């Protein structure tokens, strides 16, 4: 009904290759033109020598400096020229990278959106960031996030909320809200995020971009400031599926510093599928009906019809325990978090509140340093682990987790992928749910089961919703995300399917791109953003 599925438009990759091609012949690209390139297209232009890495870096640095959405907690003060030599020989050719605040970056503030880590400068860099840098993706900025990745709206950041580029009165989703908004608004070519219960997929959906949560263990967690160790995974937030594959290719692999990291069985391929012929998609009634906003369901179903047109077979499947996933998640994640966050005690780093006795120092430091949501989850997790409640809560939750793993195993006997809406709603208004934690938690309804099962899942934009209420730019609606999930290590197949669907849907993310006012910023050398560090 009120849903608007835009008629086919040339997606990024194609448009970009045209651009790259055109500018190959003609003189040089303008800043705006190079900023339109997807990361993959930028790599092509850089390696073809049509573009200087330092130019591209400075253009993005200026664009990021003109950010009006509060996407960043730090922007590099370095000129592109100082980013080491231009790197045409590296696989990523020098395309700059925005990194979620919670990744430790040596000598660069890594605060995980928390006051308790304000100004913290780690002495080491996270493995995955190091790998991407070695592959030729220099660090452009650190992105805003919900404190310790706890949140679905980015309103829990100690550094202020991030605004949704589609509608600045609304949230970008969370916890990787800064990364999602920055990519959607074109302030960064791509960004690194983390997903514990949906923190990549949900903001990607609300910002109309692509977000991938890899198989648990596929990417090293070393240097990721932990939220829930058995669920946290790093993943790409990108303008299109091709970029997601390209970034993931340089992220995966066993790391001797992370005992839970695994060898990825094969190289990540760049997706190229054009049809879904022979692909069986399972729609679990538990996650694609009750509790999902009507407009979102419409866009989702339109996406399914598109998939069918591409040759996919749509089947109803059942995940009987999925309705309990959220409950299990909100026991397991806070329990692990309550322990992971115990190290913030005012002794070795970060905030310390004055007190003349030890317990007073601990309790005041942790009271002053943690925000409301983090306090809630620490309390929740501590309670769930405390004697007398362990079996009823943590023990049971871990058994529910087993049932959910079994549910998916059974479903993947019948179908290749599970497909659901990514988020029950479109981007909601700032402050709409801050008063009611439970309603906020319900945002993770569709994404949490995959997290508990440790399987890969990708969110791609499948259309707009809310036109009937005149939501979004030009009243055309706000983005809706479609989630595809596959068995462990099925990333290549998943990316191929997502790519084929993306090409067919031709979602237009242009409305999120930065307005003229800020565009000026791209031309003037946007001040010295570094000062914001």
């Amino acid at each position, binding site marked *: 009904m009120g849903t608007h599925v835009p008629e086919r438009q040339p997606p990024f990759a194609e448009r970009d290759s045209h651009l790259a091609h055109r500018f190959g012949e003609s003189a040089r690209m303008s800043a705006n033109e190079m900023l339109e390139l997807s990361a993959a297209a930028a790599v092509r232009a850089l390696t073809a020598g049509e573009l200087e890495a330092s130019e591209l870096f400075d253009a993005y640095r200026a664009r990021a400096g003109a950010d009006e959405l509060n996407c960043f907690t730090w922007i590099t003060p370095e000129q592109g020229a100082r980013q080491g030599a231009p790197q045409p020989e590296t696989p990523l050719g020098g395309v700059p990278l925005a990194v979620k605040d919670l990744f430790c970056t040596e000598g660069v503030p*890594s605060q995980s959106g928390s006051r308790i880590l304000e100004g913290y400068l780690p002495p080491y860099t996270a493995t995955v960031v190091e790998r991407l840098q070695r592959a030729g993706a220099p660090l452009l900025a650190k992105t805003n996030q919900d404190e310790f990745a706890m949140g679905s709206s980015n309103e829990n950041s100690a550094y202020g909320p991030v605004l949704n580029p589609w509608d600045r009165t609304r949230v970008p989703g969370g916890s990787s809200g800064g990364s999602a908004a920055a990519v959607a608004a074109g302030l960064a070519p791509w960004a690194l995020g983390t997903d514990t219960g949906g923190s990549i997929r949900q903001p990607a959906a609300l910002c109309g971009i692509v977000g991938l949560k890899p198989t648990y263990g596929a990417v090293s967690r070393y240097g*990721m400031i932990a939220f829930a160790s058995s669920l946290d995974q790093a993943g790409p937030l990108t303008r299109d599926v091709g970029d997601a594959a390209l970034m993931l290719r340089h992220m995966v692999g066993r790391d001797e510093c*992370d*005992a839970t990291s695994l060898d990825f069985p094969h190289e990540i391929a760049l997706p190229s599928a054009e049809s879904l012929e022979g692909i069986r998609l399972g729609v679990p009634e538990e996650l694609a009906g009750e509790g999902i906003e009507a407009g979102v369901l419409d866009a989702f179903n339109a996406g399914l019809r598109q998939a069918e047109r591409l040759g996919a077979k749509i089947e109803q499947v059942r995940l009987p325990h999925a309705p309990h996933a959220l409950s299990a998640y909100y026991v397991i994640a806070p329990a*692990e978090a309550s*322990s992971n966050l115990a*190290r913030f005690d005012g002794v070795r780093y970060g905030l310390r509140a004055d007190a003349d006795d030890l317990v007073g120092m601990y309790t005041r430091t942790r009271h002053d340093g943690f925000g409301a949501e983090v306090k809630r989850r620490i309390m929740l997790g501590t309670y769930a682990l*405390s004697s007398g409640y362990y079996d009823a809560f943590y023990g049971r939750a871990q058994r529910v987790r087993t049932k959910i793993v079994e549910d998916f195993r059974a479903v993947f006997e019948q179908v290749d992928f599970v497909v659901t809406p990514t988020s029950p709603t479109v981007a909601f208004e700032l402050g709409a749910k801050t008063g009611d934690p439970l309603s906020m938690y319900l945002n993770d309804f569709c994404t949490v089961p995959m997290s508990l099962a440790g399987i890969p899942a990708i969110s791609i934009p499948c259309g707009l919703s809310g036109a009937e209420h005149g939501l979004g730019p030009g009243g055309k609606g706000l983005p809706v995300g479609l989630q595809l999930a596959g068995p462990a290590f099925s990333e290549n197949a998943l990316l191929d399917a997502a790519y084929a669907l993306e090409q067919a849907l031709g979602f237009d993310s242009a409305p999120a791109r930065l307005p003229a006012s800020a565009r000026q910023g791209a031309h003037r050398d946007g001040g010295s953003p570094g000062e914001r560090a």
Partner: protein
Amino acid sequence: MTTNYEPVIGLEIHIQLATRTKMFCGCELSFGDPPNTHTCPVCLGLPGALPVANARAIHFGLMIGLALGSTLAPRSIFHRKNYFYPDLPKGYQISQYDEPLCLGGQLAEVRIHRVHLEDDAAKLVHVGSSGRIHASDASIVDFNRGGTPLAEIVTEPDLRSAEQAGEWLRLLRTTMRRLGVSDVNMEEGSLRCDANISLRPAGESELGTKTELKNMNSFRFIERGIRAEIVRQEEILSGGGRVLQETLHFDPDSGRITSLRSKEQAHDYRYFPEPDLVPVAVEEAMLDAAQAATPELPAARAERFQGLGLSVESARRLAFTAELGDYFEAGLSAEADPAPAPQTLANWIVADLLARLEDGQSPADSRVTPTALATLSGMVGAKQVSVGAARQVLDRLVAEGGDPAAIVVAEGLSALDGGDDLAAVVAAALAANADAAERVKAGNAKAIGPIVGYVMRETKGRADGGEVTRLVNEQLGI
């Protein structure tokens, strides 16, 4: 004094493993290095850092399990033990809970409950005038020790006295030293012991309320501490009082026992499986490696020595001090001629040789080679040299070393066999002590003393006492 009460004692022993690096990171172990010079993101608990278990620590854990006859768990996991303390950087200790590496076992008369691995806390230096903890208001944390691999060995409550506990702990220490898995040095803290102590009316089987006596840092203190706690409980109980379950601290200076009840809230460690580590599965290769690395242990060695005919005391004395045992076995296998009886050699090592060495000096470091002592004790056994003469030879060996046989010849110390020359000396002795001879003849055997003394003087102790007596009687026609 605990006449109507029987002490029931169990021990919890923490042993720092002698690996090169820490339990969960690559920082080198150190002792006495400048503070905070052996740390990294992992052992400092920096945000984002992750633990990875040390393979050799697991290997040592398996060796300990084998040595104690434990059941080695085919699959064991690490848990987080959550509590706040400045020496605990992560806010939790990575330990083992309901699936430890080793279960059960026994050492001598004491059953083992379990053996598990964990990481050690850092060092808190209390800043304060006297250095006594309660006098200080601030502390300094040194994370060098933090993360050192620990094996915690928990016994069943099978000990019944402070002395027995000390004795058993010595055996455990010797065993661990023999395994080479730890320095087991109490002064340096690589061996730490807590004792769980309760009393019950003699004959009762039900256990009384136990107290935990913490971190006694020398064998002397352990025995004194346990004794003191037994007395304390005995007084409470015989006074009709009830023993409180609490953690106690023994102050060796005052000999007083004080409660360690901290101001912190009640402990609730909220154990849960460590999600940053994967389960430890003991594979065949790991077991073989541990087996291969495990040498013969003191208890077994002592039994083997007894099999050679040694008394229980000699066997333990030699087996429980590795260097003595090695020296003894070197002597036995030296093919000395004549070969000594094992017990004779044992006596010469323990009674004669050790008495001639400085305290703590190992026979191996003396000038007396195992072969030399074996030969000497062999000659004594074969009556080629008298005990007295042999002691003179040993003095020379300790001073200059050398070959006992050669010394005997050079010094003319070889025993006089019952030949004419000894008979002649005896005759002279009788002549010189006529009255003594008369009394002996009259049946007073004791009167023989001066006569034998004369012979020994004349023969510089080379004569065999028995032979002399025989000749005296013979010449007196008794």
